[in-house]
């Protein structure tokens, strides 16, 4: 089932505008990530889709499931699966009772029989790999296990849409990686239209079919992970999707399109992995940038170097592969030259 939100706006009683004219379409079977910093409105958007928050009464926009307007429907009527950030498991119920809750509260004529419910629960616990834990209570489970119970509970009502709020937010790094790969696999098997919220760009880029980048209640860009990473629409997206170094108007390439005499010097954005180092000034560069190696962080497959520019004293971050680092082996305190392999400018910087 597809989800379409159009021109959503949501202002909280305090006057905080969490969503500002947000439109987004999620196709059937798609897995979309809502990515943004805290306060960007991503969770609010998810909750509006679920029916847990209502958009502004006037001009607040609408939510459609499968082309049908569900703006007036309550959270229960929308029949979505929702996984809460802190799981929100029913603390006094066993895993089995938690998972079966959505089936047990149905009106009598729609409620499956006891046996069917039990079978369904066991099927789901199998799916989330928690077979033996049906009679445990939430407090007897680890974070990752609770997360999966929450997912099984959401799936029990066979929702057409699955919404996940920071699904891996409260887990440690290793469990996170495992779970998100597992979620992706699960999604590929079940093909249920899913939207998840995250502030972790790596998570969004790895798991999602498409990423919707939000900032201050507005959509900055919607696209595939490759799209948003390779072709960021603006500097916010570029900044948010990875570390970045700023260089102010002193590059040989110059601004590619717009340049006026009285404009401020353009800003160039360069990712750390696009900065290589040389011992000698690069050929053909009239004004090479010289910097001193200030700190090296050699652990891991990528070696991170912090350099201080000679001319501006700004700190520049560079990432070298382990091989390149070994080949070059720069010492702390040594002077090197920066080679910018891929610099980017954004039109908005010229309009100021």
């Amino acid at each position, binding site marked *: 089932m597809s989800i379409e939100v159009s021109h959503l706006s949501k202002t909280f009683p305090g006057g905080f505008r969490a969503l500002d004219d947000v439109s987004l379409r999620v196709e059937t079977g798609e897995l979309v990530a809502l990515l943004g910093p805290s306060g960007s409105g991503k969770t609010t958007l998810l909750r509006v889709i679920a029916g847990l928050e209502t958009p502004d009464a006037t001009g607040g926009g609408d939510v459609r499931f499968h082309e049908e307007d569900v703006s007036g429907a309550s959270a229960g*009527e929308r029949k979505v*699966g929702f996984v809460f950030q*802190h799981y929100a498991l029913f603390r006094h*119920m066993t895993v089995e009772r938690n998972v079966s*809750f*959505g089936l047990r509260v149905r009106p009598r004529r729609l409620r499956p029989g006891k046996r069917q419910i039990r079978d369904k629960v066991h099927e789901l616990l199998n799916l989330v790999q928690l077979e033996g834990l049906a009679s445990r209570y939430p407090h007897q489970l680890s974070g990752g296990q609770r997360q999966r119970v929450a997912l099984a*509970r959401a799936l029990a*009502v066979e929702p057409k849409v699955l919404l996940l709020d920071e699904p891996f937010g409260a887990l440690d790094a290793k469990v996170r990686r495992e779970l998100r790969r597992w979620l992706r696999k699960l999604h590929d098997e079940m093909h249920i239209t899913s939207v998840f919220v995250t502030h972790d760009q790596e998570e969004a880029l790895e798991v999602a079919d498409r990423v919707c980048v939000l900032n201050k209640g507005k959509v900055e860009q919607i696209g595939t992970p490759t799209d948003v990473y390779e072709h960021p629409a603006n500097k916010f997206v570029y900044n948010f999707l990875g570390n970045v170094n700023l260089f102010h108007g002193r590059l040989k390439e110059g601004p590619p399109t717009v340049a006026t005499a009285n404009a401020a010097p353009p800003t160039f954005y360069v990712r750390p992995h696009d900065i290589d180092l040389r011992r000698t000034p690069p050929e053909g560069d009239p004004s090479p940038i010289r910097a001193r190696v200030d700190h090296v962080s050699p652990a891991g497959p990528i070696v991170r170097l912090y350099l201080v520019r000679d001319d501006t004293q700004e700190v520049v971050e560079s990432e070298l592969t382990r091989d390149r680092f070994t080949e070059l082996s720069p010492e702390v305190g040594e002077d090197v030259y920066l080679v910018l392999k891929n610099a980017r400018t954004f039109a908005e910087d010229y309009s100021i």
Partner: protein
Amino acid sequence: MLIALAILLLTIFLILPLVLIFVSALAEGFGAYVHEVLDDRTWSAIRLTLITAAIAVPLNTLFGVAAAWCVTKFDFRGKSLLATLIDLPFSVSPVVAGLCLLLVFGKRGWFGPVLERLDVPVIFAVPGIVLATVFITFPFVARELIPLMEAQGTDEEQAARVLGAGGWQTFWHVTLPNIKWGLLYGVILCNARAMGEFGAVYVVSTNQADQITLPLHVQRVYYATYVRVVPVFAVASLLAFLAVVTLIVKTFVEWRFRHDVKRDDADTE
């Protein structure tokens, strides 16, 4: 040192008087004690106290849960005002509360003439006693539940709603089980106060036999038989016994309650 002081004070102010009540009650032997307890007027007082508690406690349990539910699970204008109003009976002297009832329902009060025409006696009758008790014991359940429900948040209720549960289902299956020990604790305190309230009830009752609750009865017996200690202490022992039972149940519930809270803490780690 502090502990010794605390124990000393406890002994002087709490344990000794409690022991004294039972010792004095039994001063003339068990027969005399039973005779006093089985006295008709004592029984009538017990009956009225039980009736009053049987009305006030369920009512205030209902009010308390509803009020705590409103205050903690919803956002609305005047919410803090409501929270303050719930505490009002705690901050007002019971005698003043009784006097207020007199002003509202008394012969010359706002509703006095209407009630008189309808021939529904409130003040100086059983309804007045019940009303006074309800007023005085109003905050106990709500006060107990509000911090608890605030700490638990609304996540589980939202989860239930998304899963298709209606308001009642959410309340019965999710909210109530989560607050049951806190609720029971509040009900016990509410009940203890309902049975023990003196000031407010005193103001709205007369000296007639059918308007005497146990605490009022203790006072009446005391003035009637002040040369003998057995009658008054025999009656007082009933209230003291109630207090002891309350304390035991309360300790158990508190223990269970803390047990649950500890579990919840482990939950949120």
